[in-house]
């Protein structure tokens, strides 16, 4: 498969005299992946993703998007139409006077003809479900709707990858579910998702988890391989999903359960099968006792 983003020996220092924020990062991202990036505050997550669409240029090393190196200013528009980026505060990403004009901002920057702009705006609004609010002022939207609008603005660019920096940090649970559901749907349409998050529950939704610490990539694997390393995650200052920690504690106490459990449903299944095992064995021991008595 062709690599969408190649990161080769990337080092980035904001100031020459200070410790670099990123040290020798190597990373390949393929089309259609769903990646979560986790790590404690100040570990360089934001610095890393800002290299993906040339908002930051490597101090040394190289970042390529679809074979275009990000340090070539002539390719900037090519890179940015492929890599959409959503920031934490949706309010500061909305530039249009109405919902649909905001979505039209990106395609307008690409210089597309009006008909094509219209088609993309209608399509993007339909995907995020804001068609009914098309002529509203962005100011009248709720926090969750503003995030959906920000995503629609990216979708209208028809990107290959969408990078999100803690998109759910300030949202209520309902809006959070809405945004996460949309991310999964976009991924199923073949768009690669790179999701920076503090929530391990959200990281568990990804296919691949990257863990960063002190400017380095310290782990890269599936949620199964990473999120159940409870004591290691805690030593990094990260909290594993609560349900995983519960299963891990049960396991530590000698119970026969798996700790690769990230959702309540999976936990229920695991616990029920454990109970059934116990009931089976206690019944077996009861019958044995009865036999001995006889």
């Amino acid at each position, binding site marked *: 498969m062709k690599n969408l983003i190649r990161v080769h020996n990337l080092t980035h220092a904001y100031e020459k005299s200070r410790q670099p924020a990123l040290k020798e990062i190597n990373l390949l991202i393929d089309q259609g992946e769903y990646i979560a990036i986790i790590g404690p505050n100040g570990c360089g997550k934001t610095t890393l993703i800002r290299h993906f*669409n040339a*908002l930051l240029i490597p101090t040394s090393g190289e970042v390529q998007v679809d074979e275009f190196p990000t340090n070539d200013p002539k390719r*900037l*528009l090519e890179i*940015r*139409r492929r890599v*959409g*980026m959503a*920031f934490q*505060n949706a*309010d*500061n*990403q*909305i*530039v*249009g*006077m*109405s919902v*649909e*004009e905001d979505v*039209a*901002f*990106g*395609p*307008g*920057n*690409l*210089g*597309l*003809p*009006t008909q094509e*702009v*219209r088609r993309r*705006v209608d399509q993007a609004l339909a995907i995020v479900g804001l068609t009914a609010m098309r002529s509203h*002022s*962005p*100011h009248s939207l709720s926090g969750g709707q503003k995030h959906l609008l920000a995503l629609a*603005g*990216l979708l209208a*660019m028809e990107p290959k990858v969408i990078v999100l920096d803690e998109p759910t940090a300030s949202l209520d649970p309902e809006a959070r579910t809405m945004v996460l559901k949309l991310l999964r749907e976009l991924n199923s349409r073949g768009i690669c998702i790179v999701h920076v998050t503090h929530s391990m529950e959200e990281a568990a939704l990804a296919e691949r988890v990257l863990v960063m610490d002190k400017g380095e990539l310290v782990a890269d694997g599936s949620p199964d391989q990473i999120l159940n390393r409870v004591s290691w995650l805690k030593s990094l200052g990260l909290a594993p999903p609560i349900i995983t920690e519960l299963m891990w504690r049960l396991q530590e106490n000698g119970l026969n359960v798996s700790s690769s459990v990230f959702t309540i449903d999976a936990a229920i299944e695991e616990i029920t099968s454990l109970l059934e095992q116990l009931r089976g064995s206690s019944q077996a021991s009861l019958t044995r006792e009865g036999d001995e008595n006889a």
Partner: protein
Amino acid sequence: MLRPGYAYRESPVHDRDPRVKLIAVIALSIIIFKVNFFGLLVVSMITLVISLLGRLSLRSVLKTVYPVLPFFILLFLMYIFFTPGRPIPPFPIGLLQISYEGLNLGILQIWKFLLLVVAAAILTMTTSQSGITMGLERLLRPVRIVGISSHDIAMLISLALRFMPTLLDEMNSISQAQLSRGANFNPRRLSGKIRAIGYLAIPLAVNVFRRCDELVDAMEARGYQPGHRTYLHELALSLLDYWLIVGIIAALVLVVIV
């Protein structure tokens, strides 16, 4: 106040290209300072007809005049008291006098100013903000000769309009935060008033800069580059629009030259 009552209605005035309306308001502002009493009457009648065609209620149009009314009354008093000429009978009372010339001039000038305000109100009530911005962008295209891009000007205007309500919200929350910490916004002394502005303006300005940083990143990430771009709504002049522009400019030339 921020959105002076624009609401779309199906009317020949709403459906005109914003450029026609912008040119009309500019032309009107020149014409009314060149015409006499009779000409002013004609322009007023035309304005009235346009607002009726636009299905605007006269009350809502006149409402837009209220905020400027105190200023106009002051201006009117200055005209009637300070214009020299033949005094009207009960005057002069002491040093105070009202002249025929002053009364005449006062009424005419205030009438002109009011007409200007009403014309601007009709423009904003029948044209969306983005319509006005787009219209300005197209009208200003020739300034690229001196190296200014009209696209950038339109971007500036639309960003200002977009963030106006956001900043207003933010100002309210800052003022509440300051009040809850014991800041006093209604002091009697001037020095206190100046300090109160600082309590609001400094945090607001800091926040605006922080917002700007994020906005710049977001705009760049969405491929913004100064200069040429395209829009969701491209303006297109109809035949009627062309004829109206020709008519307006002909009237302007006629009034200014004759």
